[in-house]
C-alpha cells in the first residue's frame, strides 16, 4: 500500500514538473508519430511482398506493434528513467539520501522518476491496438481481455525486474551507461513476434531479455494463441524473477559504500 502511495506522490510531483514544459508534449508527439509512421511503412513493405509472416496476419502484426509501442511507452515513462537515475546515484554516492529515508529503498528507487510526456507513446500504442483489434474482425471475449491484461502486467513486471537486476550490477561495476543503449537495441526485436526468430535467438529473447513476455505473449492473448500453460509459466517466471531481483538488490546494497560515511 505504501508503495502505491509513494508512487502516486512522486507521479504527481513529476507530472507537475514536466507539465510546465508544454512544448515538449508536441516534440514527443511528433517523435511518436514519426516512429509510428516508420513502423507502419515497414509493415506495409513486408505485406507488399507476402500475405502472412510466420503464421501472423497483417492485423495480428499490428497488434504486436501496438503492444510494442504501449510497452515501450511504459518503459520510457517509468522504468528507464528510474534505472538511469539509480545508476547515476550509485556512481556519485547520492544513493545515501535515498537509503536514509524511512521507506524501502527498492520501492523508492523504482518510483521516483516519471517522464509524463512518454504517455503519448502509451496512448498511441492503445490506439494502434484498438485499430488492430477492429481489423481483426474477431470479437475479443472477456477471458481474452483478462488474459491480455494479466499478460501485460506480468510482462511489465518482468521488464522491471530485468532492468533492476542489470542496474544492481552497478554496485560492483559502477559504469553501466551503455546498458541503456544495449537494451533499446534488443527491445526493437519485440517489434515482431519472437516466434519468427531462430531457436537460439528466441530463447535469448524469452529468458535472457524478457522481450517475448513483454510483447509477444500479450499479443498472443489478443490473437487467440495463448495457452493457459504459457500464461501460468509466465506467472511462475515473474514470481521467480521478483524473488531473485529482491535478493540481488539486498546483496548489492550490502556492497554499497556510499559517499557520506
Amino acid at each position, binding site marked *: 500500500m505504501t508503495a502505491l502511495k509513494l508512487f502516486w506522490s512522486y507521479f504527481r510531483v513529476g507530472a507537475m514538473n514536466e507539465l510546465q514544459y508544454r512544448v515538449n508534449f508536441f*516534440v514527443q508527439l*511528433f*517523435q511518436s508519430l*514519426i516512429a509510428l*509512421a*516508420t513502423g507502419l*511503412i*515497414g509493415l506495409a*513493405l*513486408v505485406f*507488399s*511482398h*507476402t500475405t*502472412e*509472416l*510466420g503464421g501472423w496476419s497483417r492485423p495480428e502484426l499490428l497488434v504486436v506493434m501496438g503492444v510494442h509501442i504501449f510497452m515501450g511507452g511504459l518503459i520510457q515513462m517509468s522504468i528507464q528513467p528510474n534505472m538511469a537515475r539509480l545508476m547515476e546515484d550509485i556512481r556519485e554516492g547520492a544513493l545515501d539520501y535515498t537509503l536514509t529515508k524511512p521507506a524501502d529503498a527498492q520501492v523508492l528507487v523504482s518510483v521516483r522518476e516519471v517522464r509524463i510526456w512518454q504517455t503519448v507513446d502509451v496512448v498511441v500504442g492503445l490506439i494502434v491496438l484498438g485499430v488492430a483489434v477492429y481489423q481483426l474482425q474477431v470479437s475479443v471475449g472477456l477471458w481474452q481481455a483478462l488474459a491480455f491484461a494479466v499478460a501485460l502486467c506480468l510482462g511489465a513486471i518482468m521488464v522491471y525486474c530485468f532492468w533492476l537486476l542489470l542496474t544492481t550490477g552497478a554496485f560492483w561495476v559502477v559504469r553501466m*551507461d*551503455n*546498458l541503456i*543503449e*544495449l*537494451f*533499446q*537495441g*534488443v527491445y*526493437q*526485436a519485440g*517489434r*515482431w513476434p519472437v516466434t*519468427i*526468430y*531462430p531457436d537460439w*535467438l528466441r530463447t535469448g529473447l524469452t529468458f535472457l531479455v524478457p522481450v517475448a513476455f513483454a510483447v509477444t505473449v500479450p499479443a498472443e492473448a489478443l490473437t487467440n494463441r495463448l495457452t493457459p500453460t504459457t500464461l501460468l509459466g509466465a506467472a511462475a517466471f515473474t514470481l521467480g524473477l521478483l524473488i531473485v531481483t529482491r535478493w540481488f538488490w539486498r546483496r548489492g546494497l550490502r556492497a554499497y559504500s556510499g559517499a557520506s560515511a
Partner: protein
Amino acid sequence: MNAFKALADFYLTNMKTAIACEFQYRVAQYFYMIGMIAEPVIYLVVWSTIAGAQGGSVGGYTPGQFAAYYIVWTLVRNMNIVFTPYGWEWRIRQGQLTGMLMRPLHPLHYDISWFAGWKFVVILLWLPIAVVLYLAFQPTLNPSWLQIAVFAVAIWGAYLIRTMLLWLLGLISFWTTRVSAIFELYFTLELLLSGRLVPLSLMPEWVQSLANFLPFKYAFGYPIEALVGQPTPVQLFAGLGMQLFWIVVGALAVQLVWRAGVKQFTSVGN
C-alpha cells in the same frame, strides 16, 4: 605544396591521436556495437522468413543473400557514424566552437580526421563480430576482386558523404536550437531511402527512382550492393563517380552554409 603537406601531416597526426584515444574505450565500444546488431538481425530474420514463404527469394534476394546484405550492413553502418548533428548545439553553447574558429584550419578537417582514425579502431573491433554473424547466419557471399577493391573505396566515400550531410544538418543549430523535429524527419527519410531498412530493390518503383537522385543511397545501399550483389564494372565505377559527385556537392554546400552561419555567430568571453 607546403600547405598540402601540412594538411596531410595534420590528418595523420589527428588520426593517430584518435586511434590511441578511442582504443581505450573498446569495451564501451563493443557494448554499443553489439546493441547495434539487433537492428540488422531483426530485418534479416523478417525478410528471410518472407523469402522462405515466397518460394526461396523476394526482390531478388535469397535468405543467404539477405544474410550477406545485413552482415555487410553492420560494417557500413559503423562507417556511417560521424559527428552527431545534435552535438552542434553543445559545441556552440559550451564555447568549443569559439576555440575551433581561432585555429587556422577549418573545423571540418578536425572532424573528418578524428572520425577517420576512429574508424580503424571500429573496423578492428568489428572483425570478431563479423565472424560470429557469418557463422550464425551463413550468408551467400562470393565477391570478385574488383568488387572488394571498389567496396574498400566505397565505404570511405560513404563516410565522407555522411560527414557532409550531417554537418549540414548540424549547422542549422546556428539559427535555431529547436532542431530535433528536423533531425528526426531527416533520419527517417534516410532510413527509408538509403537501403538501411531494406535493400532498395524491395522498395516500390517510384521510391527506387527517387533514391537515385538523392545522396542517401550512395552513403549506404551502394557500398553494400557493390560487395553483395552482382554489379557490372560499369555500374561499380558509376557508383563511385556518384559518390564523388555527392561529396563535392556536399562540401560546397557545407562551405556556403558555414560562411553564412559563422558570419552571424557571436560569442562572449574574456
